[in-house]
C-alpha cells in the first residue's frame, strides 16, 4: 500500500506563492483561508544570517493526532496513500483536530467543517501531481510513494539531507524539507 510524502527543496523555493494560488484555485479554498502557505524563517546574527523559505501544509503524519482525537471518525486515514482526509458530512465542528495539530494546518470551512490539504488526492488518483507540485516554477517539490524504494521521492531522500518540522511532537510528519 502506498504511503505518499513530499520533499521540498529549500534551496530552490523562492516563496513565490504559486503553490498557494494553485491550491486555492484547484480546491476552491474559501477567501481568507489557506490549505498551504509560505513560512520565512531567519536565524543568526548580522551579518551571518541564514534564511529558509518553506511551503508548508498538512504533514499527513504517520501518527496523526487529529485522527486519534476525532469523536466521529470524520478525520480519517484514506487509502491509497495513507493520506489524512476529512469527511465534511461526518464532522461536527468540535475543533479538537485544530487543537491537536502541532502544525496548525487546519481551519474551519465557512460551512462549519474542518478543512485541510488533501495532497490533491483527486488529482493523484487520476495520475496527476498535486496542484502545488505541478505549478512550482522552481520545481522544488518531489511527491510520491515513500514506501517504494524506486520512487523519485525515495531516491531524493536517499541522496539529500533534510529535516521535518517539530519532530519532538512525535507525529511522524511525511513532509521533508531538504537542506
Amino acid at each position: 500500500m502506498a504511503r505518499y510524502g513530499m520533499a521540498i527543496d529549500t534551496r530552490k523555493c523562492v516563496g513565490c506563492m504559486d503553490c498557494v494560488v494553485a491550491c486555492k484555485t484547484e480546491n476552491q479554498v474559501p477567501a481568507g483561508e489557506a490549505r498551504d502557505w509560505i513560512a520565512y524563517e531567519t536565524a543568526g546574527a548580522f551579518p551571518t544570517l541564514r534564511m529558509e523559505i518553506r511551503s508548508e501544509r498538512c504533514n499527513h503524519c504517520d501518527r496523526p493526532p487529529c485522527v486519534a482525537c476525532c469523536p466521529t471518525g470524520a478525520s480519517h486515514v484514506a487509502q491509497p496513500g495513507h493520506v489524512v482526509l476529512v469527511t465534511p458530512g461526518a464532522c461536527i465542528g468540535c475543533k479538537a483536530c485544530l487543537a491537536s495539530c502541532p502544525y496548525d494546518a487546519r481551519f474551519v470551512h465557512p460551512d462549519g467543517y474542518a478543512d485541510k490539504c488533501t495532497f490533491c488526492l483527486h488529482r493523484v488518483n487520476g495520475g496527476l501531481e498535486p496542484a502545488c507540485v505541478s505549478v512550482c516554477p522552481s520545481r522544488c517539490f518531489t511527491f510520491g510513494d515513500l514506501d517504494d524504494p524506486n520512487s523519485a521521492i525515495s531516491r531524493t531522500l536517499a541522496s539529500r539531507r533534510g529535516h521535518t518540522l517539530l519532530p519532538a511532537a512525535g507525529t511522524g510528519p511525511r513532509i521533508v524539507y531538504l537542506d
Partner: protein
Amino acid sequence: MTPEFFITRHNAMVDPFLRVWSWEIPVYLFLGGWVAGMMILTGFTLATGRHRERPCAASALPGVGLVLLSLGMLALFLDLEHKRFVWRLYTTFQPSSPMSWGAWILIAVYPVLVGSWLVRPPALAADLSASVERASLWLQARASLVRAVGAASIGLGAALGIYTGVLLSSLGARPLWSSGLLGPLFLASGLSTAAAFAHLVARHTGERESMARLDNLALSLELAILSLLMLGLLAGSAAQADGARLFLGGAFTAPFWVFVVLVGIVIPLIVQSLAVAHRIQHTPVAPVLVLTGGLAMRFVFVYAGQASHWAHGVWASLP
C-alpha cells in the same frame, strides 16, 4: 538569537496562537466536573443507605445535577461549528477519542441521575405527580437496586470528572495540557465544588459539617495535584516548561494565582478549616469562593493551554 518567523497564512483560529475555544468549553468543563462531584456524593449516600436520613446529597443534588448537566451540554452544543451534524457523535464510537468517550458517558449519566433523583424526589415533585411517587416508592422498596444506582453513580461520576481533564490532556499539541494529571485535578476540583454546593444548601448542621470536611480534603488534594502538575511540566520538555511559565511570570500569572490558587483553594481551605475546628461559624463565603475558583480554573487552563505551543525555529536550532 531568537529567529524571526513570518508566515503568509492568517487563520484567526490558530494565528498567532490557538483560539478555537471560547467561554463555552470552560463552562461545559466546569459544569461537567461539578455534576461529576455531585454524582459521587449522591452515589456514596445511596450505596451506604444514608439516603433514608434524607440528606441534601440524596434529595437535592441529583435534580440540580440534571439541570446543570443539561446547561453544560447546551454550552458544548453552542461551541460546535457544524451543529446540524451533532447526531454523528452517536453513530459511532471512537476508542482513541476522549470526546467520543465523553459523549457516550453523558448518555449513560442521564438515566443514573434520574434514578438517583427518584430515590428521594423533592416533596413537591412527588405531590404533583402520582407516577413520580409510585416510581419512588417502588425504588425505595428495593434496597439492592438503590445500592446499584449508587454504585453506578459513583463510577460514572468518576469517569465524567476525569474525562473533563483527559479531554484536554489528550491534545498533545498544546504542551501545557500534556499531562495525565489534568484528569485527577479536574475530578478533585469537581468533587470540591460539589461538596461546597452541598455545604451551601444543606439544612442539617451535621451534613454541613461533614461536607465542609470533605471539601477541605478535596481542596488539599487539588492543591497537591496542582503542585505535581507544575513540577511535572517544569521538569518536562522545553515546550512544557514554557507552558508552565505562563503561570510563573507569564500572561496568566495573575488569574492563576489570584482566582485559582488563592480564591479557589487557599482562602476557602483556611476559612473552612477554622469552621470545622469550631473557631469560627460556618459561612457561605468559603463555598462560594470554591465555586468561583472551580470556574476560574477551567477558564485559565483552557485559555492558557491554547496559548502554549511547540515553538517554531526547529530549523534554526540545527547546527
